[in-house]
């Protein structure tokens, strides 16, 4: 790793009532190669990040006629269609759990993931005027886009709880794993979004690939079918798709599916981490071109 974009060091200053005794000096110079991640700067701008998330949520709910209902309509209707065609007509097995809730429990984190992807991939281009006129760590933009989906997730989750009540399934102590799985979803969503949003600035057709990508990914994830259809070792290898770990984990934690998908979740976590870390590095490297190209 060569020269970082910004170097900060503290200098003692005399005089001037306006400056604190310890003033930071910012050095602006061309960066070469891989750029330092500067995550502490992200922390310094956390208030802005909060405001961007708040703005994304507010705007989403103010603009749509359906408002909050949209967060529920998408997973519920997908569940209905799947239940009819895959569950009833196709007779796909569902690990002993009623098919509708089997698939809905997977759709809740999945919708959070795919919505995050579609919002974030165009987020940089959509915030072009901000990026061209104000300085802030550009990572805030896709992070805000992905995180703002948590509100929708919460609503869809309510419906899931309602369904569990209906089917008489009561979760045990395993629900403590849910935040971990949510974190895994967030990691994956963010990791892929960083790659996509950075690429989208240079290739504007990336955001048109997203619907296609998410469709494929949907079927590559055991939402409509159980992963037990696969035999080992394929099943574990399959969980390189991080959403596999998420979905199986959700089902296990909430609905009491058979064995704990421990190894699968571990593999998924590693894959997600790899995507995230590489995504952050790539994003930071491309960041200097954003204001000029967007």
């Amino acid at each position, binding site marked *: 790793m060569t020269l970082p*974009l*910004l170097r900060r060091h503290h*200098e003692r*200053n*005399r*005089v*001037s*009532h*306006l*400056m604190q005794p310890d*003033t*930071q*000096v*910012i*050095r*602006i*110079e*061309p*960066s070469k190669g891989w750029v330092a991640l500067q995550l502490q700067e992200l922390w310094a701008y956390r*208030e*802005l990040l*909060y*405001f961007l998330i*708040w*703005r994304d949520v*507010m*705007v989403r709910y*103010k*603009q749509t006629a359906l408002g909050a209902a949209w967060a529920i309509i998408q997973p519920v209707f997908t569940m209905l269609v799947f239940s009819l065609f895959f569950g009833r007509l196709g007779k796909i097995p569902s690990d002993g759990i009623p098919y509708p809730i089997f698939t809905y429990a997977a759709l809740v984190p999945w919708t959070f993931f795919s919505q995050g992807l579609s919002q974030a991939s165009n987020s940089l281009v959509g915030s072009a*005027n*901000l*990026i*061209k*006129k*104000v*300085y*802030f760590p550009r990572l805030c933009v896709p992070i805000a886009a992905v995180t703002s989906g948590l509100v929708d997730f919460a609503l869809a989750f309510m419906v899931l709880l309602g369904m569990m009540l209906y089917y008489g399934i009561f979760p045990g102590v395993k629900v403590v794993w849910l935040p971990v799985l949510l974190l895994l979803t967030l990691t994956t969503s963010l990791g892929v979004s960083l790659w996509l949003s950075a*690429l989208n600035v*240079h*290739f504007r057709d990336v955001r048109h690939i997203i619907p296609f990508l998410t469709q494929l990914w949907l079927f590559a994830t055991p939402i409509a079918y159980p992963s037990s259809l696969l035999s080992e070792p394929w099943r574990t290898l399959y969980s390189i798709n991080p959403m596999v770990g998420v979905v199986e984990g959700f089902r296990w934690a909430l609905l009491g599916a058979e064995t704990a998908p421990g190894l699968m979740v571990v593999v998924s976590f590693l894959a997600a981490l790899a995507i995230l870390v590489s995504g952050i590095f*790539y994003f930071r*490297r*491309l960041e*200097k*071109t954003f*204001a*000029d*190209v967007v």
Partner: protein
Amino acid sequence: MGDIAIRVEEIGKKYRIGKAEKYKTLRDTLASAFAAPFLKVGRLLRGEGAVDTGQDEQIWALKEVSFEVRQGEVIGVIGGNGAGKSTLLKILSRITEPTTGFAEIHGRVGSLLEVGTGFHQELTGRENTYLNGAILGMNKKEIDRKFDEIVAFSEVEKFIDTPVKHYSSGMYLRLAFAVAAHLEPEILIVDEVLAVGDAGFQQKCLGKMGAVAKEGRTVLFVSHNMGAITQLCGRAVQLEKGRLKRSGSAGEVVAAYLSSVAGTELKSSWSDESSKPNDSDVRFKSVRLLSPDEQPLAIINFNESLLVEIAYEVKVPIRNLSVTCLLHDSMNCLVFESMDTDMPEWNGCVRNPDIYCATTKIPPLLLRPGRYQLSFAAFVEGVRIIERLQRVLTFDVSGVGCTLQPKRDGVVSPVLDWKVCRASENGRMV
């Protein structure tokens, strides 16, 4: 004051524009079609973006620009369109990276490159204030503290909770500027935000910026409004085609810039007699524009007077000589002509050979804000024109001090006294 706030050292910024078309053979086309995806991926991973660098034209928006700004200084950046002013501000605001050189910034920077950045139409004025404040770098506590001030400054209290899409453009601007005006960074970078809005709004902005400058903050100000620059800034730098053309006191730099724009000299003088053709009976030696306290200048405020000083040499005794100055405005309309023989003691006399210096004062509260040019002539009424200087001096009248609302039409806009009385006051029935 004394420590450096901003130091710019050999900053350069290169942009790639367009692509030169090259004649391609089929072999080339096929070869590049196969290689292209791999080349593209390689470029992407290196962070160079999608554009093919080989055949592109490259321009230097900035080249080898160096200067220093001390704490507490208010420095203006002027130059024509495309000179690189906005690029310089973007680099200092860390929005884009320099290609060469470096800059050092000592202190917290607040950048105002646009008014209303981040405003969203669906959100209310209140919500946008918080959002915009956060974007500009204020934290929530700060915005809470200043919220009432901001709303009062913007004069949109009644509408603060309606979505901004219902605001008129004036309200929108006032609110946006109000938020920006309450930024309190150590270093403030401002880019032509005063270019939008009506005269009243611009005055308010100037006033606020003046207050900010007086608080001892360092300000870097880019504008085309020369009046604002001379009013607010102590020093100025001029950029031309990406390079630093000159730097010095605001008055000097603005004057030099304006004269180079108009193609004329602020002070025209001819010391070499043989270089001037025409009659030798009367020769103009120099013409100058001065402020009331005899400083050379190129801009006056609406409420200030301007001295015109003409030095000329009379070679032979001449009777009935008149020396006149003519004022043309930017529409090429002759505003007035005035001659020294308007003074009775100079009318109809004989002027003996000598060097004469004539000064006349253009009164304040008369000329419409805008650009003017002065011409001079020496002639004998009804007989001959001895010498003429066409459009040799240029000056601006700025809107500062102009209390006339709305803006006036007409060649001049004098401030006249009006006396109004009512019939009912005089106890008469009409």
